[in-house]
């Protein structure tokens, strides 16, 4: 009982932290490099405990992300749903990739996400974004190993502490 509660707190805490990181200001030069934290952490949980992560959760988290960002309602929800679907579909393969291949897969996933975002924005009638728009997937690829190692380490510590 206690253990599941601790695991739940860790799960929701990591997601709450993602929202904060997403909102967090950065120096102007680094702004374009802000990774899609929510997607990275959702990817970790989809790989490690897929019973928690489903399309419904991705949709709900996305809607809340939209409420925070104040863009277009449903934009984050759609992006996260597609992201989550691909991850769950290829979960068994992604899980056993070595880290560098995982990072490349993350790059491809985030690039796909950016293309989706571009399509959404274009169909909403917004002008094309500048070149920096495409840097975020690279930042996500660089950030992924660290996100994975950090979360994995924290989770295993939590387990060791509980048992």
């Amino acid at each position, binding site marked *: 009982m206690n253990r599941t509660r601790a695991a739940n707190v860790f799960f929701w805490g990591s997601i709450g932290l993602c*929202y904060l990181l997403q909102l*967090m200001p*950065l120096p102007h030069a680094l702004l374009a490099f802000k990774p899609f934290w929510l997607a990275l952490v959702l990817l970790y949980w989809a790989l490690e405990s897929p019973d928690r992560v489903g399309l419904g959760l991705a949709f709900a988290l996305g809607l809340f992300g939209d*409420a925070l960002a*104040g*863009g277009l*309602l*449903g934009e984050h929800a*759609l992006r996260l749903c597609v992201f989550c679907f691909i991850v769950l579909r290829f979960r068994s393969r992604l899980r056993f990739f070595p880290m560098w291949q995982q990072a490349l897969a993350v790059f491809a996933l985030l690039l796909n996400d950016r293309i989706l975002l571009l399509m959404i924005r274009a169909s909403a009638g*917004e002008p094309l974004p500048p070149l920096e728009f495409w840097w975020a997937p690279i930042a996500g690829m660089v950030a992924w190993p660290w996100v994975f190692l950090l979360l994995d380490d924290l989770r295993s510590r939590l387990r060791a502490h509980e048992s």
Partner: protein
Amino acid sequence: MTIARNDKAVLFAADAANALRLIGYLALAIILMVIDHRGGYLSRLRWGLSTVIEPMYRIAAMPSQLARDARMSLADRSRLTEENAQLRRDLLLAQARLDRVNLLRNQNRHLKQLLDAQRSLGLGVQLARIIDVNPDPFRQRVTVDAGSNQNVHVGQAVLDAQGVMGQVVDTLPNTSTVMLITDAAHAIPVVVDRTGMRAIAHGSGQIDTLKLPNVPISADIKVGDKLMTSGLGGHFPAGFPVGIVGSIQTAADGMFVVATATPSAALDRSVEVLILHELPDPVGPPAPAIPLGPPGNAPEPAIAVQGAGERQ
């Protein structure tokens, strides 16, 4: 073998179910987006969730706030003295300018009274602080700590000490979102201070650049020209600095000149902003008078009354 086949069948069934669910969610998301694009329901949802959203903004802004406070408290004495002296000089200058403006205002009021025009020149402003959060790097928007509880409404102009920053596009109870003039979706009617030429300055999506895409090739515009708000369109009051022309190039099709300008307001450095209270009077033709009484007879009495007024 049969087990393997069964496994596969189950796997495919699960895949198909998942794909169906994906399609369902995607359709839902697209429907939501279309409805929101037409009706703007997101702001209502944000309003409902504001008790959650506003604290999250404050928490997300906390590290940079702490960093700023730390920098302030560690700033050395000489720099503060220097800054103080600079501010004193600026204040003196501003005061002198203000005195002159006061004089002009009095003169203006007098002249307006002579003209019998009832138009106020007073500017009600409200001070607000920028909350340092940034939900989307590709939208030039900032969040300020005053919302509808502080009487902020959508459409109000936002200024800083140097010029126009943008306008309020969304309000929550205690925070509101300001679209900066450099947002790619923003355009502001301007007038070149030196020549009085009208133009429209579009945001470029870059925080230090405005674009004037359709300037006629024969127009008198030079690098260094000051752009002011023209007051046309009714969103921004006239006479506030917007930017300074930085470069002028001929457009690719050779029909127009494309000018870029740097915004006057310190868009990426301001901490305190002014939210303008009164919206300026709409400029344009007066609304058509509604004829009173039966259609056939109405104009005649009106003219008669006017004539009577002139005679008196």
